[in-house]
Protein backbone atom coordinates (compact mmCIF):
# COMPACT_ATOMS: atom_id res chain seq x y z
CA UNK A 1 0.00 0.00 0.00
CA UNK A 2 2.98 2.34 0.22
CA UNK A 3 3.01 4.74 -2.68
CA UNK A 4 2.61 3.54 -6.20
CA UNK A 5 5.30 3.14 -8.75
CA UNK A 6 3.22 3.44 -11.89
CA UNK A 7 3.50 0.72 -14.47
CA UNK A 8 2.50 2.90 -17.39
CA UNK A 9 2.94 1.35 -20.81
CA UNK A 10 6.03 2.33 -22.78
CA UNK A 11 4.40 1.89 -26.18
CA UNK A 12 0.99 2.91 -27.43
CA UNK A 13 -1.71 0.69 -25.94
CA UNK A 14 -2.64 -2.18 -28.22
CA UNK A 15 -6.35 -1.46 -28.12
CA UNK A 16 -6.03 2.07 -29.44
CA UNK A 17 -3.11 1.77 -31.84
CA UNK A 18 -5.31 1.44 -34.92
CA UNK A 19 -7.72 4.16 -33.89
CA UNK A 20 -7.70 7.53 -35.62
CA UNK A 21 -8.73 10.37 -33.27
CA UNK A 22 -11.68 12.35 -34.67
CA UNK A 23 -10.63 15.75 -36.02
CA UNK A 24 -11.45 19.04 -34.34
CA UNK A 25 -14.84 20.35 -35.40
CA UNK A 26 -16.12 16.92 -36.41
CA UNK A 27 -19.48 15.77 -35.03
CA UNK A 28 -19.57 12.36 -33.39
CA UNK A 29 -22.53 10.56 -31.91
CA UNK A 30 -21.86 8.89 -28.57
CA UNK A 31 -24.57 6.97 -26.72
CA UNK A 32 -27.39 8.82 -28.45
CA UNK A 33 -25.94 12.32 -28.02
CA UNK A 34 -24.08 14.31 -30.66
CA UNK A 35 -20.78 15.89 -29.61
CA UNK A 36 -18.67 18.47 -31.38
CA UNK A 37 -14.98 17.56 -31.11
CA UNK A 38 -13.47 20.66 -29.52
CA UNK A 39 -10.89 21.00 -26.76
CA UNK A 40 -10.95 24.62 -25.59
CA UNK A 41 -7.99 25.89 -23.56
CA UNK A 42 -7.26 29.24 -22.00
CA UNK A 43 -10.74 30.56 -22.81
CA UNK A 44 -13.13 32.18 -20.33
CA UNK A 45 -15.62 29.30 -19.88
CA UNK A 46 -18.36 31.85 -19.21
CA UNK A 47 -18.45 32.62 -22.95
CA UNK A 48 -18.83 29.02 -24.19
CA UNK A 49 -22.10 27.24 -25.05
CA UNK A 50 -21.59 23.76 -23.58
CA UNK A 51 -24.96 22.54 -24.86
CA UNK A 52 -26.98 23.93 -27.74
CA UNK A 53 -30.13 23.10 -29.69
CA UNK A 54 -30.07 21.73 -33.22
CA UNK A 55 -32.92 23.75 -34.79
CA UNK A 56 -33.28 21.13 -37.54
CA UNK A 57 -34.21 18.45 -35.00
CA UNK A 58 -36.08 20.67 -32.50
CA UNK A 59 -39.86 20.24 -32.67
CA UNK A 60 -40.61 23.11 -30.32
CA UNK A 61 -42.31 20.91 -27.71
CA UNK A 62 -40.85 22.90 -24.81
CA UNK A 63 -39.88 19.86 -22.70
CA UNK A 64 -36.34 21.27 -22.26
CA UNK A 65 -37.72 24.56 -21.01
CA UNK A 66 -39.69 22.80 -18.27
CA UNK A 67 -36.50 21.12 -17.01
CA UNK A 68 -34.31 24.24 -17.14
CA UNK A 69 -33.79 25.75 -13.68
CA UNK A 70 -32.91 29.24 -14.91
CA UNK A 71 -34.98 29.72 -18.06
CA UNK A 72 -31.85 29.95 -20.21
CA UNK A 73 -33.38 27.71 -22.87
CA UNK A 74 -36.43 29.27 -24.52
CA UNK A 75 -38.34 29.86 -27.72
CA UNK A 76 -36.05 31.73 -30.10
CA UNK A 77 -37.31 30.92 -33.59
CA UNK A 78 -40.59 31.51 -35.44
CA UNK A 79 -41.50 27.79 -35.56
CA UNK A 80 -41.14 27.47 -31.80
CA UNK A 81 -37.68 25.92 -31.84
CA UNK A 82 -35.73 26.47 -28.66
CA UNK A 83 -32.23 27.81 -28.16
CA UNK A 84 -30.00 28.92 -25.30
CA UNK A 85 -30.28 32.69 -25.06
CA UNK A 86 -26.83 33.37 -23.61
CA UNK A 87 -24.11 31.33 -21.84
CA UNK A 88 -24.44 33.80 -18.95
CA UNK A 89 -27.84 32.39 -17.99
CA UNK A 90 -26.99 28.71 -18.54
CA UNK A 91 -25.51 26.67 -15.66
CA UNK A 92 -24.53 23.85 -18.07
CA UNK A 93 -26.39 21.16 -16.12
CA UNK A 94 -27.53 19.39 -19.29
CA UNK A 95 -30.96 18.50 -17.92
CA UNK A 96 -32.46 19.92 -21.14
CA UNK A 97 -30.34 17.48 -23.13
CA UNK A 98 -31.20 14.49 -20.94
CA UNK A 99 -34.94 15.21 -21.18
CA UNK A 100 -35.28 16.18 -24.86
CA UNK A 101 -37.62 13.62 -26.47
CA UNK A 102 -36.19 14.34 -29.95
CA UNK A 103 -32.46 14.11 -29.22
CA UNK A 104 -32.20 17.67 -30.53
CA UNK A 105 -29.70 18.99 -27.99
CA UNK A 106 -26.00 18.34 -28.47
CA UNK A 107 -22.76 19.02 -26.61
CA UNK A 108 -20.39 21.63 -27.98
CA UNK A 109 -17.23 20.52 -26.14
CA UNK A 110 -15.59 17.10 -26.32
CA UNK A 111 -11.99 16.29 -25.43
CA UNK A 112 -12.05 12.70 -26.74
CA UNK A 113 -9.94 13.57 -29.80
CA UNK A 114 -7.21 15.14 -27.70
CA UNK A 115 -7.35 12.29 -25.15
CA UNK A 116 -6.79 9.71 -27.91
CA UNK A 117 -3.75 11.68 -29.05
CA UNK A 118 -2.37 11.93 -25.49
CA UNK A 119 -2.89 8.18 -24.93
CA UNK A 120 -0.61 7.52 -27.92
CA UNK A 121 2.05 10.01 -26.82
CA UNK A 122 4.91 8.13 -25.09
CA UNK A 123 6.00 11.30 -23.24
CA UNK A 124 2.64 11.81 -21.54
CA UNK A 125 1.19 9.89 -18.63
CA UNK A 126 -2.59 10.07 -18.81
CA UNK A 127 -4.20 10.13 -15.36
CA UNK A 128 -7.74 8.85 -14.79
CA UNK A 129 -10.03 10.70 -12.37
CA UNK A 130 -13.55 9.19 -12.45
CA UNK A 131 -16.35 10.56 -10.27
CA UNK A 132 -18.43 8.35 -7.95
CA UNK A 133 -21.65 8.43 -10.04
CA UNK A 134 -19.91 7.30 -13.27
CA UNK A 135 -19.63 3.74 -11.88
CA UNK A 136 -23.42 3.58 -11.39
CA UNK A 137 -24.23 4.60 -14.98
CA UNK A 138 -21.46 3.28 -17.24
CA UNK A 139 -22.70 -0.33 -17.23
CA UNK A 140 -26.01 0.75 -18.81
CA UNK A 141 -24.16 1.61 -22.04
CA UNK A 142 -23.15 -2.05 -22.28
CA UNK A 143 -26.61 -3.48 -21.70
CA UNK A 144 -26.27 -4.03 -17.96
CA UNK A 145 -29.31 -3.31 -15.72
CA UNK A 146 -29.95 0.28 -14.58
CA UNK A 147 -27.62 1.38 -11.78
CA UNK A 148 -25.30 -1.66 -11.85
CA UNK A 149 -22.12 -0.92 -9.85
CA UNK A 150 -19.15 -1.32 -12.21
CA UNK A 151 -16.32 0.35 -10.22
CA UNK A 152 -13.83 -2.52 -10.62
CA UNK A 153 -14.55 -3.06 -14.33
CA UNK A 154 -14.23 0.69 -14.92
CA UNK A 155 -10.72 0.72 -13.43
CA UNK A 156 -9.71 -2.28 -15.59
CA UNK A 157 -11.14 -0.62 -18.71
CA UNK A 158 -9.23 2.61 -18.00
CA UNK A 159 -6.00 0.63 -17.57
CA UNK A 160 -6.60 -1.19 -20.88
CA UNK A 161 -7.36 2.08 -22.63
CA UNK A 162 -3.79 3.07 -21.76
CA UNK A 163 -4.32 5.38 -18.80
CA UNK A 164 -0.96 5.33 -16.99
CA UNK A 165 -2.21 6.15 -13.50
CA UNK A 166 -5.57 4.88 -12.30
CA UNK A 167 -6.44 7.40 -9.65
CA UNK A 168 -9.96 7.97 -8.48
CA UNK A 169 -11.98 11.03 -7.66
CA UNK A 170 -13.62 9.13 -4.81
CA UNK A 171 -10.36 9.46 -2.91
CA UNK A 172 -10.66 13.25 -3.03
CA UNK A 173 -14.31 12.94 -2.01
CA UNK A 174 -12.82 11.65 1.25
CA UNK A 175 -10.36 14.58 1.25
CA UNK A 176 -13.32 16.94 0.67
CA UNK A 177 -15.07 15.57 3.75
CA UNK A 178 -11.96 16.25 5.84
CA UNK A 179 -11.59 19.80 4.50
CA UNK A 180 -15.26 20.76 4.27
CA UNK A 181 -16.11 19.11 7.60
CA UNK A 182 -13.28 20.99 9.31
CA UNK A 183 -14.41 24.24 7.69
CA UNK A 184 -17.96 23.69 8.98
CA UNK A 185 -16.69 22.95 12.48
CA UNK A 186 -14.65 26.18 12.40
CA UNK A 187 -17.72 28.16 11.31
CA UNK A 188 -19.83 26.60 14.08
CA UNK A 189 -17.19 26.96 16.81
CA UNK A 190 -15.50 30.27 15.93
CA UNK A 191 -18.10 32.08 13.83
CA UNK A 192 -15.35 33.33 11.51
CA UNK A 193 -17.67 32.96 8.52
CA UNK A 194 -21.45 33.05 8.27
CA UNK A 195 -23.81 30.08 8.60
CA UNK A 196 -25.36 28.19 6.92
CA UNK A 197 -22.49 26.76 4.95
CA UNK A 198 -23.43 25.63 1.45
CA UNK A 199 -21.64 22.71 -0.25
CA UNK A 200 -19.49 23.56 -3.27
CA UNK A 201 -19.13 20.18 -5.00
CA UNK A 202 -21.67 20.80 -7.76
CA UNK A 203 -20.37 23.08 -10.55
CA UNK A 204 -23.85 23.91 -11.86
CA UNK A 205 -24.89 25.09 -8.42
CA UNK A 206 -21.66 27.09 -7.91
CA UNK A 207 -22.16 28.94 -11.20
CA UNK A 208 -25.82 29.48 -10.29
CA UNK A 209 -24.87 30.95 -6.90
CA UNK A 210 -22.21 33.21 -8.45
CA UNK A 211 -24.69 34.47 -11.04
CA UNK A 212 -28.01 34.71 -9.21
CA UNK A 213 -26.94 35.01 -5.54
CA UNK A 214 -23.44 36.58 -5.54
CA UNK A 215 -24.24 38.22 -2.18
CA UNK A 216 -24.22 34.72 -0.64
CA UNK A 217 -20.67 33.87 -1.80
CA UNK A 218 -19.42 33.98 1.82
CA UNK A 219 -21.84 31.15 2.62
CA UNK A 220 -20.34 28.86 -0.01
CA UNK A 221 -17.72 26.48 1.35
CA UNK A 222 -14.27 27.61 0.19
CA UNK A 223 -13.45 23.96 -0.52
CA UNK A 224 -12.97 23.08 -4.14
CA UNK A 225 -15.02 20.20 -5.47
CA UNK A 226 -13.42 16.71 -5.26
CA UNK A 227 -12.22 16.86 -8.88
CA UNK A 228 -10.73 20.32 -8.41
CA UNK A 229 -8.84 18.87 -5.43
CA UNK A 230 -7.62 15.77 -7.27
CA UNK A 231 -6.14 17.79 -10.17
CA UNK A 232 -3.63 19.75 -8.04
CA UNK A 233 -3.00 16.83 -5.65
CA UNK A 234 -2.20 14.52 -8.60
CA UNK A 235 0.42 16.91 -9.98
CA UNK A 236 2.05 17.60 -6.59
CA UNK A 237 1.48 14.83 -4.04
CA UNK A 238 0.79 12.28 -6.78
CA UNK A 239 4.02 13.22 -8.55
CA UNK A 240 5.89 12.69 -5.28
CA UNK A 241 4.21 9.29 -4.72
CA UNK A 242 4.58 7.96 -8.27
CA UNK A 243 7.92 9.47 -9.25
CA UNK A 244 6.36 10.93 -12.41
CA UNK A 245 6.80 14.68 -12.85
CA UNK A 246 3.60 16.74 -12.69
CA UNK A 247 4.36 18.37 -16.03
CA UNK A 248 4.32 14.96 -17.76
CA UNK A 249 0.83 14.22 -16.47
CA UNK A 250 -2.36 14.77 -18.46
CA UNK A 251 -5.30 14.65 -16.06
CA UNK A 252 -8.67 13.47 -17.34
CA UNK A 253 -11.71 14.25 -15.23
CA UNK A 254 -14.49 11.71 -15.95
CA UNK A 255 -17.87 12.98 -14.83
CA UNK A 256 -21.62 12.26 -14.91
CA UNK A 257 -21.97 15.92 -15.72
CA UNK A 258 -21.74 18.59 -18.41
CA UNK A 259 -21.05 21.50 -16.04
CA UNK A 260 -17.76 19.93 -14.94
CA UNK A 261 -16.39 20.92 -18.37
CA UNK A 262 -16.96 24.53 -17.33
CA UNK A 263 -15.31 23.94 -13.95
CA UNK A 264 -12.21 22.36 -15.50
CA UNK A 265 -11.69 25.51 -17.57
CA UNK A 266 -11.90 27.95 -14.66
CA UNK A 267 -8.71 30.05 -14.92
CA UNK A 268 -7.96 29.82 -11.18
CA UNK A 269 -7.59 26.02 -11.38
CA UNK A 270 -3.79 26.04 -11.63
CA UNK A 271 -2.66 25.60 -8.02
CA UNK A 272 -0.23 22.81 -8.95
CA UNK A 273 1.81 25.16 -11.17
CA UNK A 274 0.23 23.54 -14.28
CA UNK A 275 -3.36 23.28 -15.48
CA UNK A 276 -4.90 21.18 -12.70
CA UNK A 277 -7.45 19.52 -15.00
CA UNK A 278 -6.38 18.99 -18.61
CA UNK A 279 -9.55 17.40 -19.98
CA UNK A 280 -13.09 16.66 -18.88
CA UNK A 281 -15.37 14.00 -20.37
CA UNK A 282 -18.60 12.43 -19.21
CA UNK A 283 -19.91 8.89 -18.75
CA UNK A 284 -21.23 8.67 -22.33
CA UNK A 285 -17.85 9.70 -23.78
CA UNK A 286 -16.01 7.12 -21.64
CA UNK A 287 -18.42 4.43 -22.88
CA UNK A 288 -17.68 5.54 -26.46
CA UNK A 289 -13.90 5.29 -25.87
CA UNK A 290 -14.29 1.78 -24.41
CA UNK A 291 -16.43 0.71 -27.39
CA UNK A 292 -14.00 2.25 -29.89
CA UNK A 293 -11.17 0.28 -28.30
CA UNK A 294 -13.18 -2.92 -28.73
CA UNK A 295 -13.04 -3.82 -25.04
CA UNK A 296 -15.54 -6.44 -23.90
CA UNK A 297 -16.65 -4.41 -20.90
CA UNK A 298 -19.23 -6.80 -19.43
CA UNK A 299 -16.69 -9.64 -19.10
CA UNK A 300 -13.81 -7.57 -17.72
CA UNK A 301 -12.19 -8.67 -14.44
CA UNK A 302 -12.42 -6.18 -11.55
CA UNK A 303 -9.27 -4.29 -10.59
CA UNK A 304 -8.37 -1.86 -7.84
CA UNK A 305 -7.23 1.70 -8.62
CA UNK A 306 -3.60 2.64 -7.93
CA UNK A 307 -3.18 3.33 -4.21
CA UNK A 308 -2.42 6.59 -2.42
CA UNK A 309 -4.73 8.61 -4.67
CA UNK A 310 -7.18 5.84 -5.45
CA UNK A 311 -8.38 4.18 -2.25
CA UNK A 312 -11.82 5.28 -1.08
CA UNK A 313 -14.66 4.62 1.34
CA UNK A 314 -18.43 4.27 1.39
CA UNK A 315 -18.64 7.91 2.49
CA UNK A 316 -16.99 8.87 -0.80
CA UNK A 317 -19.16 6.78 -3.09
CA UNK A 318 -22.42 8.25 -1.74
CA UNK A 319 -21.32 11.64 -3.12
CA UNK A 320 -23.00 10.30 -6.26
CA UNK A 321 -26.51 10.77 -4.91
CA UNK A 322 -28.45 13.69 -3.49
CA UNK A 323 -27.93 13.71 0.30
CA UNK A 324 -24.67 11.80 0.06
CA UNK A 325 -22.25 14.64 0.74
CA UNK A 326 -24.38 15.55 3.77
CA UNK A 327 -24.39 12.00 5.11
CA UNK A 328 -20.64 11.62 4.57
CA UNK A 329 -19.96 14.95 6.30
CA UNK A 330 -22.20 13.99 9.23
CA UNK A 331 -20.27 10.72 9.66
CA UNK A 332 -17.26 12.95 10.41
CA UNK A 333 -18.97 15.84 12.22
CA UNK A 334 -20.78 13.52 14.63
CA UNK A 335 -17.52 11.93 15.78
CA UNK A 336 -15.61 15.22 16.07
CA UNK A 337 -18.37 17.12 17.88
CA UNK A 338 -19.41 14.36 20.27
CA UNK A 339 -16.07 12.64 20.81
CA UNK A 340 -17.95 9.34 20.42
CA UNK A 341 -17.75 6.71 17.70
CA UNK A 342 -20.70 6.62 15.32
CA UNK A 343 -21.77 2.98 15.63
CA UNK A 344 -24.09 2.88 12.62
CA UNK A 345 -22.95 5.06 9.71
CA UNK A 346 -26.38 4.97 8.03
CA UNK A 347 -27.96 8.40 8.53
CA UNK A 348 -31.09 7.71 6.54
CA UNK A 349 -32.99 10.91 7.37
CA UNK A 350 -30.88 12.94 4.93
CA UNK A 351 -31.38 10.53 2.02
CA UNK A 352 -33.66 12.08 -0.50
CA UNK A 353 -35.27 11.58 -3.87
CA UNK A 354 -35.99 15.12 -4.93
CA UNK A 355 -37.02 18.52 -3.60
CA UNK A 356 -36.07 19.87 -0.18
CA UNK A 357 -35.37 17.59 2.77
CA UNK A 358 -34.56 19.01 6.20
CA UNK A 359 -33.41 17.18 9.33
CA UNK A 360 -32.35 17.85 12.91
CA UNK A 361 -29.48 15.58 13.90
CA UNK A 362 -29.01 15.20 17.68
CA UNK A 363 -25.30 15.07 18.54
CA UNK A 364 -24.27 14.18 22.12
CA UNK A 365 -22.12 16.78 23.93
CA UNK A 366 -23.02 19.36 21.29
CA UNK A 367 -26.74 19.77 20.66
CA UNK A 368 -28.65 19.70 17.40
CA UNK A 369 -27.12 20.00 13.97
CA UNK A 370 -29.68 21.44 11.58
CA UNK A 371 -29.25 20.47 7.95
CA UNK A 372 -31.03 20.75 4.62
CA UNK A 373 -30.53 18.70 1.46
CA UNK A 374 -31.86 20.00 -1.81
CA UNK A 375 -31.72 18.99 -5.45
CA UNK A 376 -33.09 20.99 -8.35
CA UNK A 377 -32.07 24.66 -8.47
CA UNK A 378 -35.62 26.02 -8.35
CA UNK A 379 -35.79 24.38 -4.91
CA UNK A 380 -32.34 25.68 -3.98
CA UNK A 381 -33.49 29.22 -4.85
CA UNK A 382 -36.13 28.98 -2.10
CA UNK A 383 -33.43 28.18 0.49
CA UNK A 384 -31.20 30.95 -0.92
CA UNK A 385 -34.02 33.47 -0.50
CA UNK A 386 -34.37 32.38 3.15
CA UNK A 387 -30.64 32.85 3.75
CA UNK A 388 -30.72 36.23 2.01
CA UNK A 389 -33.59 37.33 4.26
CA UNK A 390 -31.63 36.17 7.33
CA UNK A 391 -34.32 33.61 8.18
CA UNK A 392 -32.33 30.41 7.69
CA UNK A 393 -31.63 28.39 10.84
CA UNK A 394 -29.54 25.66 9.22
CA UNK A 395 -25.87 24.92 9.82
CA UNK A 396 -25.20 23.10 6.59
CA UNK A 397 -27.04 22.93 3.25
CA UNK A 398 -26.20 20.48 0.46
CA UNK A 399 -27.22 21.57 -3.03
CA UNK A 400 -27.19 19.44 -6.17
CA UNK A 401 -28.36 20.85 -9.48
CA UNK A 402 -29.72 17.65 -10.98
CA UNK A 403 -32.84 16.12 -9.38
CA UNK A 404 -31.64 13.10 -7.37
CA UNK A 405 -27.98 14.16 -7.56
CA UNK A 406 -25.08 13.15 -9.81
CA UNK A 407 -26.50 9.69 -10.66
CA UNK A 408 -29.07 11.64 -12.69
CA UNK A 409 -26.48 14.06 -14.09
CA UNK A 410 -26.69 15.58 -17.57
CA UNK A 411 -23.65 13.52 -18.65
CA UNK A 412 -25.04 10.13 -17.65
CA UNK A 413 -26.35 7.55 -20.14
CA UNK A 414 -29.82 8.52 -21.29
CA UNK A 415 -32.77 6.58 -19.96
CA UNK A 416 -33.39 3.70 -22.42
CA UNK A 417 -37.10 4.60 -22.61
CA UNK A 418 -36.13 8.13 -23.57
CA UNK A 419 -33.84 6.87 -26.32
CA UNK A 420 -36.54 4.64 -27.84
CA UNK A 421 -39.36 7.15 -27.53
CA UNK A 422 -37.00 9.75 -28.95
CA UNK A 423 -36.57 7.74 -32.15
CA UNK A 424 -40.30 6.99 -32.43
CA UNK A 425 -41.44 10.50 -31.59
CA UNK A 426 -38.95 12.24 -33.84
CA UNK A 427 -40.12 10.10 -36.77
CA UNK A 428 -43.77 10.98 -36.09
CA UNK A 429 -42.88 14.63 -35.60
CA UNK A 430 -40.97 14.69 -38.89
CA UNK A 431 -43.98 13.28 -40.78
CA UNK A 432 -46.30 15.77 -39.09
CA UNK A 433 -44.02 18.63 -39.88
CA UNK A 434 -43.64 17.71 -43.53
CA UNK A 435 -47.42 17.35 -43.81
CA UNK A 436 -48.09 20.79 -42.27
CA UNK A 437 -45.41 22.42 -44.39
CA UNK A 438 -46.89 20.95 -47.57
CA UNK A 439 -50.36 22.10 -46.59
CA UNK A 440 -49.20 25.62 -45.81
CA UNK A 441 -46.95 25.76 -48.86
Amino acid at each position, binding site marked *: *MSGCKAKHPAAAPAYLSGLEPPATGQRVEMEGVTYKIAAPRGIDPGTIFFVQVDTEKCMGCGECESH*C*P*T*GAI*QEMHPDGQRGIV*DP*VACVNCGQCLANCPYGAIHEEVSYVGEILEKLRDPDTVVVSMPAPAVR*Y*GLGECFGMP*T*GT*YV*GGKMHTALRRLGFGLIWDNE*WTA*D*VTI*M*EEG*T*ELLERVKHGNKPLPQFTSCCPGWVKFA*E*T*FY*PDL*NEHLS*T*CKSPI*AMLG*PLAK*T*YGAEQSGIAGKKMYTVSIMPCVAKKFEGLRP*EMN*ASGHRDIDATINTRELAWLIKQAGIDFVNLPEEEPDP*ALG*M*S*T*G*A*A*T*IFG*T*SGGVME*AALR*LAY*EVLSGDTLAN*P*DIKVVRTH*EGINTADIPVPNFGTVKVAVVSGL*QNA*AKLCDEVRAGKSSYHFIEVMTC*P*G*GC*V*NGGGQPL*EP*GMLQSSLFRSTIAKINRRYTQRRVG
Partner: protein
Amino acid sequence: MKNIATMSRRGFIKLAGFTCGYAVLGFNMTREAVASTLEFIGIRQQSVYDADRKVYAIRKSQENPMIKKLYAKDGFLHEGPCGHESHHLLHTHYSDRSAGLKALKAKGVKLAL
Protein backbone atom coordinates in the same frame (compact mmCIF):
# COMPACT_ATOMS: atom_id res chain seq x y z
CA MET B 1 -70.60 21.40 -31.20
CA LYS B 2 -74.30 20.63 -31.55
CA ASN B 3 -76.54 21.67 -28.70
CA ILE B 4 -76.43 18.92 -26.13
CA ALA B 5 -80.23 18.92 -25.84
CA THR B 6 -80.63 18.03 -29.50
CA MET B 7 -78.01 15.32 -29.33
CA SER B 8 -79.13 11.74 -29.59
CA ARG B 9 -78.83 9.54 -26.56
CA ARG B 10 -76.43 7.24 -28.39
CA GLY B 11 -74.32 10.22 -29.47
CA PHE B 12 -74.12 11.54 -25.93
CA ILE B 13 -72.96 8.20 -24.52
CA LYS B 14 -70.40 7.88 -27.30
CA LEU B 15 -69.02 11.35 -26.59
CA ALA B 16 -68.97 10.79 -22.84
CA GLY B 17 -67.26 7.45 -23.35
CA PHE B 18 -64.53 8.93 -25.51
CA THR B 19 -64.01 11.82 -23.10
CA CYS B 20 -63.64 9.51 -20.11
CA GLY B 21 -61.43 7.14 -22.06
CA TYR B 22 -59.04 9.86 -23.14
CA ALA B 23 -58.99 11.40 -19.65
CA VAL B 24 -58.16 8.12 -17.92
CA LEU B 25 -55.71 7.00 -20.57
CA GLY B 26 -53.97 10.38 -20.72
CA PHE B 27 -53.71 10.60 -16.96
CA ASN B 28 -52.33 7.09 -16.69
CA MET B 29 -49.78 7.63 -19.44
CA THR B 30 -48.54 10.80 -17.79
CA ARG B 31 -48.40 9.10 -14.42
CA GLU B 32 -46.50 6.18 -15.87
CA ALA B 33 -43.98 8.45 -17.60
CA VAL B 34 -43.34 10.38 -14.38
CA ALA B 35 -43.16 7.18 -12.32
CA SER B 36 -40.72 5.56 -14.74
CA THR B 37 -38.33 8.53 -14.54
CA LEU B 38 -38.52 8.59 -10.74
CA GLU B 39 -38.03 4.86 -10.57
CA PHE B 40 -35.05 5.09 -12.90
CA ILE B 41 -33.29 7.65 -10.67
CA GLY B 42 -34.35 5.71 -7.57
CA ILE B 43 -32.73 2.50 -8.83
CA ARG B 44 -29.40 4.25 -9.40
CA GLN B 45 -29.64 5.90 -5.97
CA GLN B 46 -30.40 2.57 -4.27
CA SER B 47 -27.42 1.00 -6.02
CA VAL B 48 -25.18 3.72 -4.50
CA TYR B 49 -26.40 2.95 -0.98
CA ASP B 50 -26.05 -0.79 -1.56
CA ALA B 51 -22.43 -0.34 -2.66
CA ASP B 52 -21.77 1.82 0.41
CA ARG B 53 -22.83 -1.10 2.63
CA LYS B 54 -21.57 -4.06 0.62
CA VAL B 55 -18.64 -3.06 -1.63
CA TYR B 56 -16.69 -0.65 0.55
CA ALA B 57 -14.92 -2.15 3.56
CA ILE B 58 -14.49 1.26 5.23
CA ARG B 59 -17.43 3.65 5.42
CA LYS B 60 -16.03 6.81 7.03
CA SER B 61 -13.62 9.20 5.31
CA GLN B 62 -11.57 9.73 8.47
CA GLU B 63 -10.85 5.98 8.63
CA ASN B 64 -9.39 5.72 5.10
CA PRO B 65 -5.70 4.74 5.61
CA MET B 66 -4.67 6.83 2.59
CA ILE B 67 -6.41 9.85 4.13
CA LYS B 68 -4.62 9.22 7.43
CA LYS B 69 -1.34 9.01 5.50
CA LEU B 70 -2.04 12.32 3.70
CA TYR B 71 -2.69 14.19 6.96
CA ALA B 72 -0.10 12.33 9.11
CA LYS B 73 2.61 14.23 11.04
CA ASP B 74 5.10 13.38 8.30
CA GLY B 75 2.47 13.48 5.54
CA PHE B 76 1.99 15.81 2.59
CA LEU B 77 -0.67 17.88 4.40
CA HIS B 78 0.91 17.55 7.87
CA GLU B 79 -0.78 20.73 9.17
CA GLY B 80 -4.11 18.88 8.95
CA PRO B 81 -7.28 19.85 7.10
CA CYS B 82 -7.66 23.58 6.34
CA GLY B 83 -3.94 24.12 6.97
CA HIS B 84 -1.72 26.43 4.91
CA GLU B 85 -0.95 23.98 2.09
CA SER B 86 -4.59 22.86 2.01
CA HIS B 87 -5.65 26.45 1.50
CA HIS B 88 -3.21 26.83 -1.37
CA LEU B 89 -4.16 23.62 -3.20
CA LEU B 90 -7.65 22.67 -2.10
CA HIS B 91 -9.56 25.87 -1.37
CA THR B 92 -10.79 28.55 -3.72
CA HIS B 93 -12.71 31.82 -3.99
CA TYR B 94 -15.80 32.75 -5.97
CA SER B 95 -16.58 35.53 -8.41
CA ASP B 96 -19.62 37.72 -8.88
CA ARG B 97 -21.10 36.78 -12.25
CA SER B 98 -24.25 38.85 -11.92
CA ALA B 99 -23.10 41.68 -14.24
CA GLY B 100 -23.63 39.58 -17.38
CA LEU B 101 -27.06 38.60 -16.10
CA LYS B 102 -28.04 42.24 -15.49
CA ALA B 103 -26.92 43.16 -19.02
CA LEU B 104 -29.01 40.31 -20.40
CA LYS B 105 -32.09 41.41 -18.48
CA ALA B 106 -31.52 45.00 -19.59
CA LYS B 107 -31.79 43.74 -23.18
CA GLY B 108 -35.28 42.56 -22.32
CA VAL B 109 -34.55 38.82 -22.00
CA LYS B 110 -36.90 37.18 -19.51
CA LEU B 111 -35.59 34.34 -17.33
CA ALA B 112 -37.28 31.99 -14.89
CA LEU B 113 -35.53 33.67 -11.95
